């Protein structure tokens, strides 16, 4: 067959057009393009697998919310909290899969002050620490063994406490917070151990003296349920605070007062309660009433707090008219700062309104019998401030170098100690001064419900490591009969007790109020009050290590690595400050790195509202060096009863 040139060209042309059209209408080029995009961008495809749900528990606070974990194969991909709990439950996956998790025990290789560690075997780390504890006991240096626990007690805290106490050391502390402070008040005024607990669920009127109840305070999971109960029942809620916090805005009435004047305002309320015939059977109530009548008249309280007489009286009346009223102490959110005197004033109000031992009770962390050793110092801050040396320090899931206002002094102490052991899942500020780091398991990895997610590396819970250390120390091993941490969990429990007796520490209250009065009236160069506030999702600051937390920050808190503080425009204009100005804040203790100012009428006059939880020197790639930590310049005045610094109110100057 003869092929004409024209036919040949037609055929070629047809083939070209046909191929072109065919290719265009086929998925080939598009799939190729998609493949090219994925290949050039190294696009990741999460592997698929069998779906199942595991029942687990969030053990980040005593509320122990149940959660369902969605598993795809052996990967946990979702936390179902079913409308309970708080943001912490949602963050469990970021904790579980954090790339910087401590995966093996670490031993220091370089000088203290840096993150300089090498992996070490569990056996050698445990043997070395046990030997040092044993040697300290045998060489009569047991009082240089110190245990530091987190702000809320858990079963691991019971183990560090037992190691120290059975070794013969009185030095068992916890980080400053609501539990430590209210427990100190219960011991001092009610002769009973236990943090103060309020029956929020059945209350019909709640007056909170600075406790930011819905911003991380107490057990957030419980408080979220409480908010719904209050909304349904129409519970009257009054918030006393110097900043328009979300809690203040959720309240039926916000009583705005001068920063730090909450205990004085409480005295004013107590005065009106007395005036309306309310009495208390508490010891020293007579002297307390003398203090109210002679020194804290409503007029004086009004002058010192900035609240009107009518406002003070209205708060007292609200308490009087209620059937189950509650007065709440513990200024702050997740982080609380106060004094035993302040707690005691508010407990006296609870006694006067008939709530003490009724809707105000004590919750104690009950543990098996342990030796009673006379304490040498009362609280962690007092211990750090003292000249007592430490040699073996067990720091359990805490970050006291960051959280204490005495952090710098603690770091000096830890530098001199021979064995600082930190139990943590992520390296933090305190890790810079540790000799050993022990990894710990996260909530989802614990077989509380018989189901747990695998950590994918060899890890043990801090409780199991502590148990191994104790069992390896011959002098104390017999006091630790448990086989695993879960046995330890079952050996401890929270118990609620109604304790109605009260011994009012009138002298301490008088001293505290006199100091506060001076501070509030002080003029001179430190003319501005600095008070803290929290972003609920950040809390005390550990959550900053989790990157999804950064996505939830308001745009007026942190920009780049710079912290923003809040200030009233009236004060700012007096100080010559405008929106976004860079300022330096200085107290009698020192000066902070530069911060920027956001002007808002949410803050009292002559006040700087300072965000806390930021400014970590070391807290993974995501949380380090973000903003400033104001603790080093905050008030370090020690509360003589609790042994913790009351850092709520600090007088500062701006430049």
């Amino acid at each position, binding site marked *: 067959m003869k092929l004409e040139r024209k036919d040949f060209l037609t055929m070629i042309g047809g083939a070209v057009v046909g191929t072109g059209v065919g290719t265009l209408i086929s998925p080939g080029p598009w799939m190729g393009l998609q493949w090219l995009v994925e290949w050039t961008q190294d696009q990741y495809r999460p592997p698929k697998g069998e779906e199942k749900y595991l029942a687990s528990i969030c053990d980040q606070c005593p509320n122990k919310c149940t959660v369902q974990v969605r598993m795809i194969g052996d990967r946990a991909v979702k936390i179902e909290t079913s409308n309970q709990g708080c943001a912490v439950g949602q963050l469990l996956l970021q904790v579980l899969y954090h790339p910087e998790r401590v995966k093996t025990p670490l031993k220091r290789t370089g000088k203290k002050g840096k993150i300089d560690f090498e992996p070490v075997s569990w056996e050698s780390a445990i043997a070395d620490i046990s030997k040092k504890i044993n040697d300290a006991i045998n060489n009569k240096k047991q009082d240089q063994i110190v245990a530091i626990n987190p702000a809320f007690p858990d079963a691991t805290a019971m183990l560090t406490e037992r190691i120290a106490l059975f070794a013969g050391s009185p030095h068992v502390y916890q980080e400053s917070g609501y539990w430590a402070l209210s427990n100190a008040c219960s011991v001092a005024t009610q002769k009973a151990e236990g943090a103060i607990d309020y029956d929020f669920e059945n209350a019909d009127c709640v007056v909170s003296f600075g406790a930011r109840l819905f911003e991380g305070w107490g057990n957030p999971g419980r408080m979220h349920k409480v908010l719904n109960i209050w909304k349904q029942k129409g519970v009257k809620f009054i918030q006393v605070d110097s900043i328009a916090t*979300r809690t203040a805005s959720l309240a039926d009435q916000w009583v705005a007062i001068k920063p730090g004047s909450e205990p004085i305002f409480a005295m004013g309320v107590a005065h009106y309660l007395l005036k309306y015939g309310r009495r208390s059977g508490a010891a020293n109530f007579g002297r307390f009433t003398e203090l109210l009548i002679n020194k804290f008249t409503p007029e004086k309280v009004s002058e010192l707090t900035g609240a009107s007489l009518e406002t003070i009286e209205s708060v007292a009346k609200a308490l009087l008219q209620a059937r189950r009223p509650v007065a709440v102490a513990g200024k702050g959110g997740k982080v609380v700062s106060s004094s035993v005197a302040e707690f005691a004033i508010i407990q006296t109000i609870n006694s006067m309104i008939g709530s003490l031992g009724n809707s105000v009770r004590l919750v104690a962390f009950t543990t098996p019998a342990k030796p009673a050793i006379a304490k040498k110092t009362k609280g962690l801050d007092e211990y750090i401030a003292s000249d007592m040396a430490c040699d073996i320090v067990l720091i359990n899931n805490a970050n006291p170098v960051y959280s204490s206002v005495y952090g710098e002094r603690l770091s000096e102490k830890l530098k001199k100690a021979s064995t600082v052991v930190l139990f943590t899942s992520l390296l933090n500020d305190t890790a810079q001064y540790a000799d050993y780091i022990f990894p710990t398991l996260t909530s989802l990895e614990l077989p509380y419900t018989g189901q747990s997610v695998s950590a994918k590396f060899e890890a043990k819970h801090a409780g199991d490591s502590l148990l191994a250390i104790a069992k390896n120390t011959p002098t104390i091993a017999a006091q630790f009969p448990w086989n695993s941490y879960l046995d330890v969990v079952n050996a401890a429990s929270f118990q609620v007790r109604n304790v109605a007796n009260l011994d009012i520490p009138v002298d301490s209250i008088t001293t505290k109020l006199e100091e506060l009065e001076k501070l509030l009236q002080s003029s001179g160069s430190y003319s501005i009050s600095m008070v803290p506030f929290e972003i609920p*999702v950040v809390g005390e600051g550990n959550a900053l290590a989790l990157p999804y937390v950064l996505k939830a920050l308001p745009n007026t808190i942190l920009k780049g690595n710079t912290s923003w503080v809040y200030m009233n425009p009236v004060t700012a204009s007096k100080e010559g400050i405008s929106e976004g100005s860079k300022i330096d804040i200085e107290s009698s203790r020192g000066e902070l790195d530069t911060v920027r100012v956001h002007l808002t009428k949410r803050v009292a006059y002559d006040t700087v509202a300072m965000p806390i939880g930021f400014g970590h020197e070391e807290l993974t790639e995501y949380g380090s060096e973000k903003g400033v930590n104001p603790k080093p310049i905050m008030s370090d005045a020690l509360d003589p009863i609790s042994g913790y610094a009351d850092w709520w109110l600090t007088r500062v100057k701006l430049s």
Partner: protein
Amino acid sequence: MATMTRRWGMVIDLDKCTGCGACNIACSQENNLPIFKDDSDVPKRVTFLDLIEVTNDKDPKAQYPDVKVAYIPKMCQQCSGNDPKHPQPPCVSVCPVVATDVGDDGVVSQIWSRCIGCRYCQVACPYEARVFHWWKPRYEGSFKESLNPDVSIASRGTMVKCTFCSHIWKLERDKAIAQGITDINAVTYTPACVSACPTNAIIFGDLNDPSSPVYEPKVQKDPRAVRLVHSIDELRTKDPSEYERRTKIKEYPNPKVYYLTSQQWLRDKISGFKNS
């Protein structure tokens, strides 16, 4: 196989919102949102749900202490447009490649892999609910373990947004079909932010279903209800002819997210009536 009658919508009770952040984090986790070190910088961060802190402190009349603060969880408002039968939300009508469209359940979809990154939709969206991936999404090391296989990872240069977690609906639909249930309207689901909210402030459901707590005619009568087009909603009773005219405008968004608040200042803020 029944025709889809569901029209998913949300009601968010701001009086119950504490600003805890659970919704925001649940959303980030469920939708595989990228992890950047500087995510504290609002203009750079990629989020589907912004937890916006608002106060009335810019109101010239407001002085300390007559100041309040609230949080608004703001996600894609899943606009219906001016004709619910042929919905054309502002973003959908401008997309040149049909990467965003309205499903028969009213959810405004977004297909990352089809997006060419022109960002017209971002400009068109009245709520700044759309985010552009300027950088390649990153998931450092073991963070990859927690990624959800039901949501694809977006490429650099694409637009992303909240889809009311419609992938969960698809999973529930597949489960229903596997059980032999072929009635599409029998399939219900809960987006991640809704099940995470510890105070039940966010309620999700079918705006067309009279038994649902989000049944639209009922919500519209709630004196606390306010949408992000409040200034037009207000005209429904005040000036019906003007209301009619404004809702006919092509760009009328007509969102399916309702907010509830008893606070007048917050209503004013949301409606934009006052410069507060």
